[in-house]
């Protein structure tokens, strides 16, 4: 978007009530989680709740379930337990991913039940390799039409997904092109933000920065809001002016974790294998622990 001064602003689409500084920089609003999601996510949207094992935005996903969002296109490299839950309640129309397992434990039973048996509804599948998904997010963040990699050659994935092979104009080498990902909404979790909505995360960074920059709208949930960010070596800063909303959600990545603040609940990942194996025990768990839970404020 180009503002009155002709300065190129955030690649994200809109903010709900952008505050403007003297230099015409837009800033994220700090709002409650349920307000943020009610505003940012609509039925039918493509939504990337990213997080690579670490910093998975569980609180936000659970709030989307409580708000009854439906017909979503869920995008994520590693749709683990959170997407298993969202697929199991029937919130997803389509899933775009590269690895759908419960890491170190086994299958995602709700994901499998939806694909194998259409319960509670059938789900369209678009799958890639990790390298393909990572480059799709990078292309989206860079505002390029496609990502480029050496990949997909010789395997059956190429026949079942969006990939094209193109020739390098300089060397003639054949390379794989994958279309840019541009989710309607990206939701990620981070350790902290300041009061202006600048975000810092550290530890395993996954593709969260790329997801935020690639998306039309974005929400970051945070463990805490601090007076001032102290940049950490290796920390990833996402500035307020590329984020639409920041919501405080302490513990919001559990049973995943936020390095330095919470620990990964490996026992729950194992327990999920049992809870999710059966449709009734899954539904009972969701009713008790998600639908019956008080939304984070």
């Amino acid at each position, binding site marked *: 978007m180009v503002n009155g001064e002709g300065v190129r602003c955030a690649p994200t689409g809109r903010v709900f009530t952008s505050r403007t500084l003297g230099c015409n920089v837009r800033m994220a609003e700090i709002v409650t989680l349920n307000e943020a999601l009610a505003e940012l996510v609509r039925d039918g949207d493509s939504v990337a709740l990213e997080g*690579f*094992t*670490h910093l998975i935005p569980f609180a936000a996903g659970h709030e989307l379930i409580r708000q009854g969002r439906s017909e979503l296109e869920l995008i994520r*490299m*590693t749709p683990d337990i959170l997407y298993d839950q969202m697929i199991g309640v029937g919130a997803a129309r389509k899933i775009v*991913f*590269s*690895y*759908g*397992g419960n*890491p*170190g*434990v086994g*299958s*995602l039973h709700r*994901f*499998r039940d939806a*694909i*194998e048996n259409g319960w509670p509804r059938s789900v369209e599948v678009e*799958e*890639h*390799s*990790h*390298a393909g998904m*990572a*480059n799709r*997010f*990078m292309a989206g963040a860079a505002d390029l039409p496609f990502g480029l*990699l*050496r*990949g*997909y*050659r*010789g*395997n*059956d*994935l190429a026949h*079942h997904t969006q990939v094209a092979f193109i020739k390098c104009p300089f060397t003639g*080498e*054949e390379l794989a092109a994958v279309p840019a990902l541009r989710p309607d909404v990206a939701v990620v979790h981070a350790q902290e933000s300041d009061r202006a909505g600048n975000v810092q995360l550290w*530890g*395993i*960074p*996954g*593709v969260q*920065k*790329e997801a935020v920059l690639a998306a039309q709208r974005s929400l970051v949930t945070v463990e805490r809001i601090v007076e001032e960010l102290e940049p950490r070596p*290796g920390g*990833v800063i996402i500035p307020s002016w590329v984020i639409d909303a920041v919501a405080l959600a302490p513990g919001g990545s559990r049973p995943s*974790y936020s*390095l330095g603040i919470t*620990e*990964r609940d*490996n026992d729950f*990942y*194992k327990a999920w294998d049992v809870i999710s194996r059966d449709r009734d025990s899954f539904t009972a768990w969701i009713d008790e622990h998600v639908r019956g839970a008080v939304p984070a404020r």
Partner: protein
Amino acid sequence: MTQASAEEAQTVVAARRLRDAGSVFIGVGRPSTAAILARMVHNPELVLVYESGTIGAKPFHIPLSIGDGELAETADFVVSVPEMFNYWIGPGRVDVAFLGAAQIDRFANLNSTVIGDYDQPRTRLPGAGGAPEIAAGCGEVVVIAPHNPRTMVERLDFVTTVGHGDGPGARERLGFRGAGPTAVITDLGVLEPDPSTRELTLTATLADVAVDDVVAATGWDLRVADAVAEIEPPTDDELDALRELLSR
């Protein structure tokens, strides 16, 4: 000390494979256990690379996921997923990759996507993850899998990851940089690609495993090397270290 189980022996054999490696790319489960064991008993300088972006991780415990906190906290450095694949895996900066699969064929091609038809799968598996580009780019690939006719199949239901394709020259035609699978380590023995045909060949068995049993547990007509070696059983040091690691 009680004798090693087949699974323990498989882990020990995989760890030995890393004696001279500079770096190894690993997923969770037995590959991760084997790589940590290799650092303990064979190669303390071995750089462990986990898909989550943790490079040079030195976990004390066996991680449940590839992104456990201990991996990030002990890593030499941590990178984003795009950097992992574009800077480290793709250009071949990792020596060895340990991969698993639900199905393996005679050319060490791998299926981790579906059992049955793609659109109407009997069993939906997790999918590719990083495997296709890892197998293309890393210096060499070691496959770690259980040995039975359901895993070792005549024909894959889906080719997720190319090993040696349809035989000699396949990797070169596809422009792959790494050498591809150099061994399949199972709970019965070790299969290695024939230097000229690239077809997996039984070259070694675990102690007390008969060649005929390995052939019977393989879903294709398994080639057997002229001289099949018997793998040295886990030493007391190896087994001690492995059991101590598993008990942490």
